């Protein structure tokens, strides 16, 4: 699958309310190239709810149902059931939520929808904060990150949402990143062809949230993968297979880059480097990442 094979049609219309360099619209464009117009999108409170722009206009070219923050997956269950009753079971039901609406307030509805075998694709675009409300911490925020509610740096490590989702033994799940559009396209296309609940999480580096120059959005996603802070993998039929650089890291064919390479480019980690280098914090993070990869090695056998 080469980029030139991707469809030209855009379901995300230019001139939206998204920030320049926004990973959400970046990912959404590729996702819709894989899904096409026969899609109904359910969006809880999140950046995308604002990116849609102001009534009476919208920047999205497919039907969208906005819903309350915690209710994306529950709303999707209702849409999916109704479509089946109407004989429109071939319409893709896409729940599109941020990490807030997935890891925290929305986790109950998501878990319930998966357990009920709702036939839908749930995509979490993860910018590791409550971005829409102004950069507050979420369950996805990494250790030591500044946010407006963890001003001195977050004191807890983030949840591993992929593991929580896999524990539901759903038909398909994937963890990917905005920086690899061919992979994202392939993953979404694959999910579209599978019946039942599918979960896809896309790491979405956010320029205002992570405090980096807006042209580095894609670079920041690549570095997250290359330093091992974020893993690319797919889960299907109970088996997890890693992709791209993550596969090489898993198999110890390459060393992952030092985590500083990723962290030092982001203002949210500035306090780890200035006024003095906090070696202890870096060591704690490196150790945690090593442990995460050791764990991944045990489950991918």
């Amino acid at each position, binding site marked *: 699958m080469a980029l030139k094979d991707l469809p030209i049609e855009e379901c995300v219309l230019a001139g939206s309310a998204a920030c320049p360099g926004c990973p959400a619209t970046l990912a959404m464009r590729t996702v819709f190239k894989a899904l096409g117009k026969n899609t*109904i999108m359910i969006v809880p409170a999140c950046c995308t709810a604002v990116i849609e722009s*102001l009534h009476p206009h919208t920047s999205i070219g497919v039907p969208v*149902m906005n819903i*309350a923050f915690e209710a994306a997956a529950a*709303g999707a269950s*209702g849409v999916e*059931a109704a479509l089946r009753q*109407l004989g429109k079971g071939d319409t893709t039901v896409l729940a599109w939520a941020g990490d807030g609406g997935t890891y925290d307030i929305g986790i109950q509805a998501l878990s*319930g929808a998966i357990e009920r075998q709702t036939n839908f694709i749930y995509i979490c675009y993860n910018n590791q904060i409550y971005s829409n409300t102004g950069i507050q911490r979420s369950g996805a925020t990494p250790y030591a990150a500044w946010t407006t509610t963890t001003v001195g740096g977050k004191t807890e490590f983030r949840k591993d949402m992929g593991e929580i989702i896999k524990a539901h033994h759903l038909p398909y799940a994937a963890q990917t990143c905005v920086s690899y559009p061919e992979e994202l396209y392939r993953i979404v296309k694959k999910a579209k062809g599978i019946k039942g609940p599918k979960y896809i999480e896309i790491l979405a580096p956010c320029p205002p949230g992570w405090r980096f120059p807006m042209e580095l959005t894609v670079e920041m996603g690549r570095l997250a993968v290359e330093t091992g802070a974020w893993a690319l993998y797919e889960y299907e039929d109970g088996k997890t297979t890693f992709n791209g650089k993550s596969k090489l890291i898993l198999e110890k064919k390459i060393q992952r880059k030092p985590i500083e390479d990723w962290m030092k480019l982001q203002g949210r980690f500035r306090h780890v480097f200035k006024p003095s280098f906090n070696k202890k914090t870096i060591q704690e993070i490196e150790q945690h990442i090593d442990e995460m990869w050791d764990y991944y090695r045990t489950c991918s056998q």
Partner: protein
Amino acid sequence: MTIMIDTGNYIAAKAAIMAKPQVVAAYPITPQTTVVEGIANYVKSGEYKGEYICVESEHSAMSACIGASSTGVRTFTATSSHGLLLMHEMLHWAALARLPIVMCNINRVVGPGWNIWADENDSISQRDTGWIQFYCSSNQEIYDTVIMSFKLSESLGISLPSMISYNAFILSHTSMPAEIPDQKEIDAFLPPYKPQWHLDTKNPVTFGNIIVPDAYYKVRRAMQDAQEKVKILLPKISKEWKQHFGRFHGDFLEYYHCEDADYILLSMGAIGAESKVAIDTLRQQGHKIGLARVRVFRPFPSEEILELSKKAHLIVIDRNISIGNEGALFNEVKGCLYGKSDTPVTGFIAGLGGKDVTYKDIDKICTKTMQGKVKNYEWYGLEEA
């Protein structure tokens, strides 16, 4: 037509599936559980052919109903008390989204402590959400109102959700006979659902994105206009029901011996049913007293109550309390009379926490009022509690 002798809940379940919803999404809570269990039985028997989603919370129940209704299908759910309160956010959402979802709410006390008996604080506290609100006093009325409310909610220009409330255990778990029409007759009365907007891949719209104040103000006005339209359409639908099935429970108020009454009692739900017995007893004693049972709380029947005030002293019983002020019915009755009538209105709080209110209590309430022993407002029975 068949006679079904069963509890309010099982009769509600029967009405719900006969209306042929295509999605039911619900979560169990005492004493609503037998409504959803009743529907589950109809899933097994094949009488209900729609989708039955066992969601993981009431908030998700209403959210799933909103998803389904937005996609353009008839939806139904049921809840009670804490479940209703948990879905409060989504009640507002459903009404603002102009989705004609129908829901049965079994009026149960709100905790803490845990209390499963009847009072109406749960649904009364939701009166600001924009839902059309009914209060039923018999299992027959529950059946009839469920079907009629689908027709009302789905009417052009209304498109608002309906909540049908009835008291915990007194109706929900008490068997009474009800006439059940044939499915063909219900199909003739209630046509297939035609949504007034829906999610359609052939006509993509975004529902619910950011809206500026001026536009939102218009949305609110449109909702109010829709509730005003209920005042015109509900009597037409009740009349049609009477023509088809021979039954009439009143439009907004059910009048009982009001024609020559000097005193008129306004009460709701199970107390409304008990009130008829009290009125009979008092009439036998020669008192000119009648009952105007409040069947619809939203839209509030201001015009009808104003009409009653022209000839009678009004007595109001609330099985709810807005702590810091008064019972809701008492408050809103006085509100609709302001500047238009100076008839005395006497209010009573009774039955909170599921405390039983029998016709004897209602008799005492009315007698006390008629003897001038009540200074405008009283919490009945507090001394004995």
